[in-house]
C-alpha cells in the first residue's frame, strides 16, 4: 500500500490552530496520560506523528480526535511544550473542513476575515429579510409584538425555522456520510454488518444526551459545564421549534413554558460566560489557546442569549416596539450562528462526536467478531 506524503500538512494544520507540533519528540507520555486513550485508539501521539510525517490520508480516516475531550492533561505533562491537546483541537477543525463537501468550512476556518464577513453578511441579510417580511407580509406594525397582527407572527417564524432546520440537517447529514466514508470505508477499517449498525444505534442518543464519555476526564468541571450547555441549548431549541407561540404570548408569564425557558437561559448565560472567562484568563490548558472560531462561537452564543432575554424583558415591560427591534437583532445572531456553525464549523461536533464513539465501538466489535471467526476456523490439532 502506497502512502502519499503531504509535506505541507503541518503548515495547513497551523492555520487550523494546531500548535508546536514539530516540537514533539514522540515519547508517548500524552497517550498514556490520557484517560480516554485506549487500544486501538491511542492518541494524541499518533495524530502528532501523522502530522509530522505529513500522512494526510490516515489522519483523515482517524476517529481519535473526536474521542478526545481536551481536558489538557496531555499538554500539561508534555515535556516539550508541544501542546498535543491543542493539536487534537486543530485536527478536529481540520476534519470538520474535510468532512464538509462545500469547502465553505475550510475557508471559514483558515481565514478570520472571511469568517467575519460571512457572519456579518448573513446577519445583515437576515435583518433586512425579516424587516421586509415584517412590514410587507407580517403584521406590518412594529409596535405589535404578540397576538393577532404581530410584527413577526409565531406561525411564520415556525415555517422559517423548520425550513432552516431541514436545510441545515441535510447539509450536516451529507457531511456525516462523508465522515462515515472516510473513517469506516478505508483500507484499514473492518467491514461492519448492517445488523451491528442497528444493534449499536442506541449509543448515539445515549452519548448525545449524557456526554457520558466526557465524564471520564479526570477534571469533571468541563464535563459538567458542557452538559449544562448541551441540555440548556436543547431545551431552548425544543421551546423555539415547537412552543414558540406560548413563548411569545404576553404580557403575562406562562409558567408551564417559561420556567424551562428561564432555566435554559440561565444555563446558556452561565456556561458561555464561564467559557469566555476561562479563555481570557487562560488558566487551564484547554483554555490557553483560542482559535478565532472559538471566539466567534462564544461571542455569538452570548449575543443570541442576551438579546433573547432582552426582548423577553422588553416585551413584559410593555415596550413592544423595542422588543420587536431586539427580536430582529436576535435573529441576526441566530441565523449566522446556526447557519454557519452547525454544518460548517464548531457546532458540527454535536453530530461528529457521538458518531465517532458509535463508529469506534462498531469497529472494535467487528474486529472482535472477525478474530473469533478466525479462531474457530482454525483446524484442531
Amino acid at each position: 500500500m502506497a502512502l502519499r506524503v503531504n509535506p505541507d500538512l503541518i503548515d495547513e494544520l497551523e492555520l487550523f490552530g494546531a500548535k508546536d507540533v514539530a516540537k514533539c519528540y514522540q515519547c508517548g507520555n500524552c497517550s498514556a496520560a490520557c484517560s480516554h486513550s485506549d487500544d486501538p485508539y491511542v492518541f494524541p501521539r499518533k495524530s502528532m506523528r501523522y502530522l509530522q510525517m505529513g500522512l494526510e490520508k490516515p489522519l483523515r480516516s482517524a476517529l481519535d480526535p473526536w474521542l478526545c475531550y481536551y481536558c489538557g492533561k496531555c499538554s500539561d505533562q508534555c515535556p516539550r511544550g508541544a501542546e498535543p491537546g491543542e493539536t487534537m483541537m486543530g485536527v478536529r477543525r481540520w476534519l470538520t473542513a474535510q468532512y464538509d463537501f462545500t469547502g465553505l468550512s475550510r475557508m471559514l476556518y483558515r481565514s478570520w476575515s472571511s469568517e467575519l464577513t460571512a457572519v456579518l453578511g448573513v446577519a445583515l441579510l437576515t435583518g433586512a429579510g425579516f424587516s421586509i417580511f415584517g412590514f410587507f407580509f407580517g403584521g406590518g406594525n412594529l409596535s405589535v409584538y404578540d397576538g393577532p397582527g404581530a410584527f413577526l407572527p409565531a406561525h411564520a417564524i415556525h415555517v422559517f425555522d423548520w425550513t432552516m432546520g431541514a436545510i441545515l440537517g441535510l447539509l450536516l447529514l451529507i457531511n456525516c456520510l462523508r465522515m462515515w466514508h472516510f473513517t469506516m470505508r478505508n483500507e484499514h477499517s473492518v467491514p461492519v454488518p448492517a445488523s451491528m449498525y442497528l444493534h449499536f444505534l442506541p449509543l448515539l442518543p445515549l452519548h448525545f444526551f449524557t456526554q457520558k464519555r466526557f465524564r471520564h476526564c479526570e477534571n469533571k468541571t468541563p464535563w459538567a459545564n458542557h452538559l449544562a450547555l448541551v441540555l440548556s441549548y436543547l431545551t431552548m431549541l425544543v421551546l423555539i421549534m415547537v412552543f414558540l407561540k406560548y413563548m411569545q404570548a404576553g404580557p403575562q408569564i406562562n409558567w408551564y413554558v417559561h420556567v424551562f425557558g428561564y432555566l435554559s437561559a440561565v444555563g446558556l448565560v452561565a456556561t458561555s460566560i464561564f467559557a469566555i472567562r476561562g479563555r481570557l484568563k487562560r488558566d487551564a490548558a484547554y483554555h490557553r489557546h483560542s482559535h478565532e472560531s472559538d471566539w466567534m462561537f462564544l461571542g455569538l452564543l452570548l449575543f443570541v442569549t442576551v438579546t433573547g432575554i432582552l426582548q423577553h424583558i422588553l416585551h413584559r415591560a410593555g415596550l413592544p416596539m423595542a422588543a420587536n427591534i431586539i427580536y430582529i437583532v436576535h435573529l441576526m445572531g441566530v441565523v449566522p450562528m446556526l447557519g454557519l456553525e452547525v454544518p460548517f464549523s464548531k457546532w458540527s461536533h454535536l453530530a461528529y462526536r457521538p458518531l465517532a464513539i458509535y463508529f469506534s465501538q462498531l469497529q472494535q466489535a467487528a474486529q472482535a467478531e472477525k478474530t473469533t471467526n478466525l479462531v474457530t476456523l482454525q483446524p484442531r490439532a
Partner: protein
Amino acid sequence: MKSELKVTSGARGKNPDPAMGRIGVYFLHSGEDASAAKDLQNLADYASQLPGVSMVRTLAASTGLDPEALALVFRQAGLSAVVLASEHPGFFKPAFSRALALAGGNGDQVHLASFGERGDATSPDRTKAVLAAAVQGIPFTLPPEPAPGTFFNTATMVIGGGVAGIQASLEIAESGHKVYLVERTGTIGGRMAMFDKTFPTLDCAACILTPKMVAVGQNKNIELLVLSEVQEVTGSLGAFNVKVLKHATRVDASACVACGDCARFCPVTVASEFDMGIATRKGIFIPFPQAVPNAYMIDPAYCTWVQSGGKKCGACAKKCSKDAVHLDAKDEVVSLEVGNIIVATGYDTLDATRLPRYGYGTYPNVLTSLEFERLTNASGPTGGKIVMKTKRQNKKTKADEWVFEPDGPKPKAVAIIHCVGSRDRNYNPYCSRVCCMYSLKFAHLVREKLPEAKCYEYYIDMRAFGKGYEEFHERIREEGVSLVRGRTATVKEIDSQLYIHGEDVIAEHLINVPVDMVILSVGLQPSHGSAELAEKLHVPMDSDGWFRELNYNSEPNSTGRDGIYVAGVCQGPKDIPDTVAQASAAAAEALRSIVGSRNKEDRNTVPQDAWEQTTVSPQRS
C-alpha cells in the same frame, strides 16, 4: 532601565568602520565610589574614541539585569557586539549574551574588559589597553601583573571533594604545590563513592576511587578541610583570600582510630545521607568505612549532648579509649591565602517527589537511581542483594515503616524509567547525559543478580554517546532486558502491585505492566548552594544553574575570572571519564599560572624530600 545613570555620546569625531560593526561599551560599576566615577568618566571618553564604538553607557551593576530590556536598547542602537568593562564583568556576561541574541545578534559577541584581572590599578594606560583589546575582540595577552610588593601565591583551593576535586588536588599536589581541599560533607569521595559499578566497563567504582582518596589523605601537600564551606572570597588571581567556615567534627581526627566504640553506645539513630536514607547511622558516625579522613564525627543536629546543651548523654566521650571526642569543640572560620581556585561542586539529583505521578515517597518500592545504587552496592544495607522493602514496626514510634532487609523478598520484575525530570520543560530542559548509561548498568545488575527477574527499561531516546557505550547498549539488549521506547506516564499501585502505565511507541499500543520495583532515573541538577557560591566567587552561571565556562569549545575550564576554574559536573552533566579529564585540565590551567608567574611565593608546600616520602602508592604500602 532604572539602573542607568548617564549616557555619554558615542563615536565622537570618528566614522565607525562599517566592517567592524557597531559596538556598544557598557561600564558596570557599583555606583558608590566618587573617585571611581571620575576614572570611569575618563575611560568612557576614551572608549567613545575607539573605532567601531557606536555607544558607550555606564550601568549600575545589579544581579537582576533584565535581558529583554537590554535587548530593546541593543536593537534600537543596532549593536553587533557588546563590551562589558568592569573589575569582574564575567558574572554579567550571560545576561548580555542573552540580550544580544534576543536583539537578533550573535550572543557570542560579548567581550569582557576585565580590569580586575588583566589591568593594573597603578597604570591607566594598561587599563585602556585592556579596553581597546576587548573592543577589537582580541585577547589581551600580557600576563596579569601583581601589584608591586605582592607575590603570586602558589597554593590552590579546590572546592568540592568528589572525584573531580580529588583528581585536581592530586594533580597539583603531586607537582609539588600546596592544595586546600574544601569539602562540605564529612568525607571526600562525593557521589562516585556511592556507586557500585561504573559504566561501560562494569569496574568496581570503589576500586578506582578509594586509592585516590587514600592518596589525598596521605599527601602532605593537601590540606583537607571537611565539614567546611566557603564563606567569602576576595582578591584576584595570585592573591585570593578565602574565608572558610569549618564546622567542628567534635572528634579529633588524628587521635580517632575509627574503632566504632562511640557509635555502639550512641543512643541516636537517623537516616544515613551516604546511603540516601535507605540505611541508618548513629549520631556519632563515619559516613562509610573507607571515608577519608577516616574518623568519626558528630552530627550536632541530632546529638543529645549538643541539643541538651551538655546536660545529657555524652556517652561517646566517656567510651572513647583514645579521648578523641571533644563534644564542646566550636566551629571556626579560617582565612586562607591562595593563588588559584578550582570549583568542583558536583550535582544533586532531582527531587523525585516533584513528579507525584511516579509515586516516589508514596509507594515503598519506587526508588531513585542513587537509592538503587546503594541497594546494589556490597557495602549497602542488604550487602548488595536486590530485594524489595519489607514492612516493620518501629520499636520507638510504633509506626509501620518500610525498610530493606537482606532476606527481603526478591522482585520478579523491575522497571527502570528514564528521563525522570530531564528533557522536560516542566523540570530540567536539558539531557542529564548519564542516566541512559547508568540505567543500562542497573539493568545488567538486575539480570546478573536476579536471572529470573524480568527487567524493563522505558526510554525516550537511548543516548549511548561515549567510547564503548553503544556496544554496552547492545550487550544489555542481548542480556534479555526489554527496552521499550516510550516515556512512562504513571506508576500506580493496585492491590499492592505496582503497574507501569505508558505507551509503547514502536508497537503503538498502551501498556500496563505489573512490576515489583521501579527505579527512577532522576536527572542531575547543580548541587544546592551553587548559586550562592557563584555569587561569592563572582563567576557566571548559565540559565540551568550550572557554572558557565568562558567558551564551550576552547576554554571549557575557565570561568569569567582569571584564577577560578571549573571541573566536573558543576559545569554541566558529564560522566566519570569526562569529569576526571576536565579535573586534570583545570589542574593544568592552575599549574600554568603558577609555573608561569613572576614573584612566586611558596610558603606552604612541604619540602621536596618530605613530599617524596608521602607519594608511596597505597596499593604497595
